[in-house]
């Protein structure tokens, strides 16, 4: 059997105790202070979203708790002209690319603004169909190549997605077309209730790259310093005509798959405890404290700020809920065809009549 772990050793720069292995690379102390504050805010939002579901305010929500470093690192090196093609759990990554966090709430509410990408932001709407977006990522990257743009595209997906044909076809196409694309796998080790060992027989996802003749990397996905540095290097390389690349970011879904399941039914509490110790926030906090760059007062200030921002998001979200059901017809086509316009008119009359 191929020893994937040996062939693709885990890249790490900040261990779980908060010790720096080597240096910060392209990052600065200021970057990490800001990253920590953002990560803490994102954690606050994510936990709050979970509670909103429990209160019946929103529908099913897929939490990203535990995967913040992987998601933030995945997009850390992207420029305004670069693309992100995300999967459904990637609200943190999308947020950093200019998609408001409200979208995560809209999404769980089935609100039509759920995929409403702000103009000029090069992000696709979150994809729920497993691995489908890997092909869109190849297409986007291919188009940037045809246009001779110096653009990097990052497509994100989970470990479960690597079992889908779409993923393998995307890897094949991307390598044949030599597109400027980074396949970024957030290996959180659980596809709902199915562990990775039941998802594939190979030791690592990174080694899938060998079969497609491309370079693969395995990085500690809970180590922002390692992920961000790797993505800086790879983004620059794809912009210069190299690629595609496959990155396996080893992380862990600290929460449930979605608000609809209970991980206690399918995985051991000991495993969760192990990964709670590897929490990406904890190690950054330890390191910053050790540098004398983070105090209890700083933490309190970050939390107060985070709470305030989350409250604003929720207020905006509640306001946006009052919408006309007629928006249903707005974006089915670029312009409303006459046949659909007549259905819209009937729908409108019915809505007026029955009031819903």
């Amino acid at each position, binding site marked *: 059997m191929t020893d994937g772990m040996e062939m693709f050793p885990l890249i790490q720069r900040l261990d779980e105790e908060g010790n720096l292995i080597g240096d910060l690379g392209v990052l600065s102390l200021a970057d990490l202070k800001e990253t920590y504050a953002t990560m803490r805010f994102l954690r606050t939002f994510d936990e709050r979203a979970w509670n909103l579901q429990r209160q019946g305010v929103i529908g099913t929500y897929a939490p990203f708790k535990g995967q913040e470093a992987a998601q933030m690192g995945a997009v850390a090196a992207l420029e305004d002209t670069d693309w992100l093609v995300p999967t459904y759990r990637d609200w943190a990554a999308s947020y950093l690319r200019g998609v408001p966090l409200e979208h995560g709430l809209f999404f769980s509410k089935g609100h039509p603004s759920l995929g*409403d990408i702000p103009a000029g932001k090069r992000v*696709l709407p979150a994809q729920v169909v497993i691995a489908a977006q890997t*092909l869109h990522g190849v297409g986007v990257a291919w188009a940037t190549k045809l246009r001779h743009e110096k653009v990097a595209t990052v497509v994100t997906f989970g470990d479960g997605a690597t079992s889908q044909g779409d993923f393998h076809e995307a890897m094949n196409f991307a390598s044949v077309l030599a597109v400027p694309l980074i396949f970024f796998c957030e290996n959180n080790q659980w596809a709902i209730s199915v562990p990775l060992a039941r998802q594939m027989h190979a030791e690592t996802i990174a080694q899938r790259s060998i079969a497609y003749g491309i370079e693969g990397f395995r990085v500690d996905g809970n180590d922002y310093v390692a992920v961000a540095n790797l993505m800086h290097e790879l983004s620059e390389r794809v912009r210069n005509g190299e690629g595609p690349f496959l990155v396996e970011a080893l992380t862990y879904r600290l929460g449930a798959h979605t608000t609809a399941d209970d991980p206690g039914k399918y995985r051991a509490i000991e495993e969760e405890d192990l990964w709670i110790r590897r929490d990406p926030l904890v190690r950054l906090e330890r390191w910053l404290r050790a540098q004398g760059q983070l105090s209890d007062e700083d933490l309190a200030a970050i939390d107060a700020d985070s709470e305030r921002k989350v409250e604003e998001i929720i207020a905006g979200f509640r306001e946006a809920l009052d919408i006309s059901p007629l928006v249903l017809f707005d974006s089915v086509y670029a312009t409303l065809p006459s046949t659909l316009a007549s259905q819209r008119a009937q729908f409108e009359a019915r809505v007026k009549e029955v009031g819903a």
Partner: protein
Amino acid sequence: MVKIETSPQQVTSRKLTVSKAMVEGIAQEMERDPSVIVLGEDVGAYGGIFSSTTGLLERFGPGRILDTPISETAFIGLGTGAAVEGMRPIVELMFVDFFGVAMDQIYNHMAKIHYESGGNVLVPMVLMTAVGGGYSDGAQHSQCLWGTFAHLPGMKVVVPSSPADAKGLMISAIRDENPVVYMFHKGVMGLPWMTKSTHALGDVPEESYTVPIGKAAITRSGTDVTVVTLSLSVHHSLDVADELAKEGIECEVVDLRSLVPLDRATVLESVAKTGRLVVVDEDYQSFGLSGEIAAIIAEEDPRLLRCPMKRVCVPDTPIPYARSLEQATLPTPTRIAAAIRDVMA
């Protein structure tokens, strides 16, 4: 009925087959717009197994005419991604029958990303695909399936039958901001190895022009019976109409050309005039186009019909390989003529 919209300048035309007209439409758009690209299986040196891309590789090179690996899911997803990024890909699905392996990419992604993005992401893509039987290619290579695509929201569906429409609808499809499924029947292409159809060859203006998507055409005017049809069945219906005219039956042949959007007005006007209706559809009979046309009449005014309508469709069975059996299932001129005589009786 204006069939072709052209500029008022001098129009030079000459006779082309449907396949040559399609290719000319694609080539003219590729000249005009560098974002137009073609991809699919065997679209390069081969020129498309039904000659839908003949000569394009030589003219535009492998950078814009891409032979893909055999993975429909992948190249339709690839086209969608490229369209999102501002290209105008023409993606060929070799046989529509193969949609099964790629349907998720078609109806959940290509057709829905615009909606899912709140209208901010456009997918200006053409999915062109060969449909239809009549040459013993069996149950998995002979279907039309346009009703399936037309049933699903988010994509337009066009089905040309004449060379002039093939070019004009192709240009409209490429310029459209929506994904457009462009379905060409192998029997209308004018291919030397298929059964000849005289209607596969026709006048095509040399200039670039568009045929509006969503407008049917009256390809023959008549007063006695309306024949609503599309694609190869238009050719058959025109031939039948010529024959029946000798018996004093005047058929009005309506070529739908587009299924999404569907030109309900032209159908209703024609039926209001003739009072009789035959729908000829090479797709499966149930839950499809023929039922939709019946619904239009039933919803609008069932009294338009002075006698029950007739449907000439493929029965709800797989399309047989054996020639005799296949001919028995397809809407042949014999079946069309019999249906028209029935409603005239």
